[in-house]
């Protein structure tokens, strides 16, 4: 099954400079009863966006119209907590295609890459500079070049490389599905089962 290819993304960005944003904030547990992958976008950060009466909480970045874009910029240890992939579906469902931080929780990063959501890991210093720039100038365009593994702000000199596992990179660029990859090696898996010590 093919998914959308990720090569170059140029977009404005949404800054959310908090550390340890956990998956319960990204998508509260009460929304996990759904049995489909769709519909989670509107529940993203639900309890930070809306109060108990359903009124938007002013000041929260997603309620501020000047901050829009396909890139989310966050603090350290983003996505810690649960393995719920619904957190990624909420982020992509809302329209984001990449998240930038200086560190991501392991399970979250795996889930993100399995859904074509790019996790861009940069240094603390670069993250601080990028956040400051986007915060003060919401119309700033950020450019993420996956083949080159570079994140930059074309209108300023700000630029940084970022790491990506080569296999994951190829899958993202070509829109390849991991399950198809594994299914293609089914014979080898069956052979492995036969060879094992019982």
């Amino acid at each position: 099954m093919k998914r959308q290819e990720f090569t170059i993304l140029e977009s404005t960005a949404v800054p959310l400079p908090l550390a340890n944003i956990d998956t319960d904030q990204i998508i509260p547990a009460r929304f996990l009863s759904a049995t489909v992958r769709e519909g989670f976008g509107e529940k993203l950060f639900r309890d930070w966006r809306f109060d108990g009466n359903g009124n938007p909480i002013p000041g929260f970045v997603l309620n501020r119209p000047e901050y829009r874009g396909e890139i989310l910029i966050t603090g350290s240890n983003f996505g810690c907590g649960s393995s719920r992939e619904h957190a990624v579906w909420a982020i992509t469902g809302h329209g984001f295609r990449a998240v930038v931080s200086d560190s991501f929780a392991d399970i979250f990063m795996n889930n993100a890459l399995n859904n074509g959501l790019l996790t861009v890991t940069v240094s603390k210093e670069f993250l601080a500079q990028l956040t400051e720039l986007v915060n003060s100038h919401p119309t700033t365009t950020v450019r993420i070049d996956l083949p080159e593994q570079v994140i930059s702000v074309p209108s300023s000199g700000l630029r940084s490389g970022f790491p990506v596992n080569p296999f994951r990179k190829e899958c993202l660029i070509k829109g390849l599905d991991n399950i198809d990859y594994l299914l293609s090696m089914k014979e080898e898996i069956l052979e492995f089962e036969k060879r094992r010590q019982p």
Partner: protein
Amino acid sequence: MSGKTLFDKIWDAHAVRSIQGGPDVLYIDRHYIHEVTSPQAFSGLRTRGVSVLRPERTVATADHNIPTVNQHLPVADPVSRSQVETLEENCHAAGITYFGMGDPGNGIVHVTGPERGYTLPGMTIVCGDSHTSTHGAFGTIAFGIGTSEVEMVLATQCLLQARPKQMRINVKGKLREGVTSKDLILYIIASLGAGGATGYFVEYAGEAVRKLSMESRMTVCNMSIEMGARGGLIAPDEVTFNWLAQIPSVSDNPEFSHLIHRWHSLRSDCGAHFGREVTFNAHEIPPMITYGTNPGKGMAIDGVIPSPGKAGPTFPASGHSTGSSYLKSLVYMGFRPGMKLLGHPIDYVFLGSCTNGRIEDLRLFAAAVAGKKRSAGVTALIVPGSQQVARQAEREGLTETLRLAGFEMRQPGCSSCLAMNEDKIPAGKYAVSTSNRNFEGRQGPGARTLLAGPLVAAAAAVTGRITDPRELNWQQ
């Protein structure tokens, strides 16, 4: 650098293929599934026209989204009911063993799996739940996965997984009286921070770990994820083999003694190298309580809430707390830097979850409250981790002891840990909880969670305030 770690031995035995510059293809021995993270995976298989490759290696339970009372009735909320029914239908269609609500084998996935003998030393184990690390207590590589990966395992019994770095945590000495394995792991997480072990798989070792019972080991491994570790394991030993020998389906296996012989080799070699090693002294560990909104924000029960960015005396520089995130969390909790929690009134107590919902946890709680009464202002949720635990509690008289003290035993499920069902803590209320996460809103929007072990929970339940369990008179 010579010798392999236990992790290396298990991983190498399960790597089907190593992709150049990429992850390994890892074969999975045991796949646990539940109602919340599996439906989209099964739908995905149907869309692809692929069936479940190894239903016999897959075990299912309903735990996250079921009520803990009146389980003889259908699940009230239609969406939740549909989710549980979807799991049942999917399992039936695929020939997967399923323990539904009310079934004698039902319970929280990480409680029932081990107690039914589905978790064995040397296995690779996954589940769409981050506390899958629990099974590492048996000397397994066990970790949580997302729904897409659940689909991968259902389709091919394999996962694409990058080999993590390895850390060994050594715990010397012995835990003091009144201090539980929950306090031990909370102490470790407070020291390393919520992201302190990200990228690492942990091995817990040392004298104090060897002295832990299997259930205590499960509590420790369970919370590995809360410091960002991929998983955590403990090498199996006589304690492990004796525990497994009590399970008929395991000991009745004619290969059992042969398996034990093989399991003896499941340990790290003497010269094995770990990327990082950390050592703790068990006798320094006090009963713990958390004060913030991640599990790394813990302190001694009689401690003082630290100021932002300032190293506490016992837990230097844990968890990258920027001033604003940290202060925001204290405001949420209604706390201030410099405050002590001892004596602070609380509203709810939750004993349960895959962390502390087993028979030993119930025994500890019951022993601490025996002959006393639940404090009038405290609402308690006592939730056994499984039907088997509930039956055993009944047989041992624990259910009656609890009832006399004003605590009603509920029915098994994940309950208040993540409060997907009705067992929610109301906004602004303080809950001393033996579960594993104190994130904002985890136990209900606005709920204020203080994580603790079963003795701290028991002490709070009878006094109505944060109490050092060592100050309470009780018979161990």
